[in-house]
């Protein structure tokens, strides 16, 4: 029981990270109708930017952890958002009227570019970062097993909740959010009623990348290690989360993220850790086949 609760906490933490990445997939799919295959690598770039920003801050003498973390968050969000913007501008925008699978192929190319760019620039070896946030609370004890909720887990969960709230507000209440929803319904119509579609799409990528960078920072703090390849698996899992929650649905992305996080943690805890990624891919396939509209997605009627 205690073991289970501990896994539940770990799963929700991991799921928060997946959920934040999944929002990027779900938003872009909702609006442009493409799988942004490079989004996982944007997350990886975000983690690297956070790592380097942190090292620079320490060298500059800013060593109060909360302050440093805050600055790192801002810097990494801003720069990762710039990556999101650039990728859309270079690799996707010219393809908006190309053949059906062109954006996906371009996105695969972009994913390879980002991975290898970081590998060339920063080396292929893993980058460790000593734990910055220590401590935590023992929730309860029993059967020689203490259930702990660490401070870093608290930070991750609270930040995720805060970002989700803010983001939901943005989509529901602001002008940008309204434009985004309009574009999701019908790009051509949105353009006709005077919405700057290009700008809205750009901003969608920017926001998605910024959220992915937060996930990158959390990943860095939680695991204390990054390498250039983390984006691939995290990306696939987050995409699975987006599909599971119902692609196009924001709460769906979050719910899907947490479910995937829980499934992965429980699978590793109770079955086999070697096959945990097999489980992730298997879920992806099963969901796509049997539940392609996801939990909260709209059913799709084939247009004949």
């Amino acid at each position, binding site marked *: 029981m205690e073991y289970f609760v501990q896994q539940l906490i770990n799963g929700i933490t991991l799921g928060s990270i997946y959920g934040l990445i999944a929002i990027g997939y779900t938003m872009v799919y909702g609006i442009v109708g493409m799988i942004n295959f490079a989004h996982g690598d944007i997350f990886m770039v975000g983690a690297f930017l956070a790592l380097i920003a942190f090292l620079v801050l320490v060298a500059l003498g800013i060593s109060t952890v909360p302050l440093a973390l805050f600055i790192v968050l801002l810097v990494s969000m801003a720069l990762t958002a710039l990556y999101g913007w650039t990728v859309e501008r270079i690799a996707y925008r010219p393809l908006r009227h190309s053949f059906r699978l062109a954006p996906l192929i371009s996105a695969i190319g972009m994913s390879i570019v980002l991975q290898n760019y970081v590998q060339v620039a920063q080396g292929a070896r893993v980058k460790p970062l000593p734990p910055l946030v220590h401590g935590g609370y023992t929730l309860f004890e029993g059967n020689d097993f203490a259930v702990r909720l660490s401070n870093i887990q608290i930070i991750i969960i609270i930040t995720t909740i805060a970002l989700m709230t803010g983001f939901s507000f943005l989509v529901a209440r602001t002008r940008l959010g309204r434009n985004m929803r309009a574009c999701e319904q019908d790009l051509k119509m949105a353009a006709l009623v005077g919405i700057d579609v290009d700008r809205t799409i750009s901003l969608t990528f920017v926001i998605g990348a910024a959220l992915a960078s937060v996930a990158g920072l959390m990943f860095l703090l939680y695991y204390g290690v990054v390498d250039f390849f983390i984006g691939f698996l995290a990306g696939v899992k987050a995409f699975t989360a987006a599909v599971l929650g119902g692609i196009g649905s924001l709460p769906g992305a979050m719910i899907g993220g947490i479910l995937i996080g829980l499934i992965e943690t429980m699978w590793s805890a109770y079955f086999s850790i070697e096959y945990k990624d097999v489980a992730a891919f298997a879920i992806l396939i099963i969901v796509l086949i049997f539940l392609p509209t996801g939990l909260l997605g709209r*059913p799709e*009627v*084939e247009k*004949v």
Partner: protein
Amino acid sequence: MTAPVLMVEHLTMRFGGLVAVNDLSLVVRRKEITALIGPNGAGKTTLFNCITGFYKPTVGRLLLSHSDGKSFLLERMMEFRIARDARVARTFQNVRLFAGMTLLENLLVAQHNTLMAASGYTMLGLFGFPGYARAQRRAVDRARYWLDRVGLAERADDPAGALPYGAQRRLEIARAMCTEPVLLCLDEPAAGLNNRESAELNTFLRAIRDENGTSILLIEHDMGVVMEISDHIAVLDYGIMIADGAPAAVRNDPKVIAAYLGVADEEIAQAEASL
């Protein structure tokens, strides 16, 4: 009157809360041209999609019978089986050709099942058995026949996407005819055609009915076309059939006039109050 080729019985199609077709019954007779008219959103294309299997109706029966007595319950069949076995062919409102393939290839794809059997499901054809070559020659002959009929034989080897719009519409009908249909469903065949093309289409459709003996069900907004060639007209509005009969009778039906010309809101209110 001839025997029915298609009987639509109590057909209802719902999308979530929206009822696109509501308890509709309709008879399409053999070797007749039946027109389906009605304002936008009346459920005409939905009915087409139910007949050709692209939608599964929520309730209702669709009985198609061949002249040799074979009959098919279309609502239980996959769309490709409806085309292959029940022999219902269709065209689309927004022309769907294989744009990158030549006209001839388009018409050969329409004869896929015949050719597939002749190629021994690929194995015999792969090793060049003569039976397949003969079947392909016959298929090309039929394609050429239909290209001649629509006046496109000279462009047989051009990509279909390079044709002007009117020719694309004709080609789509020719392609549907290559499947040797019992019932041909045409979704707005005259849309976007000029007067001359429209007149040619009328002649062509009559010829299909009289020479090939194919029954035709068509959706059309061009009343000139509808009144001139139809043997029978069914009028739909909000998913319900409001009139059904010969062109002359339908033309003078007050309900049809109201549906088309629209009725002022006050009149509706009056009508409702009087109920």
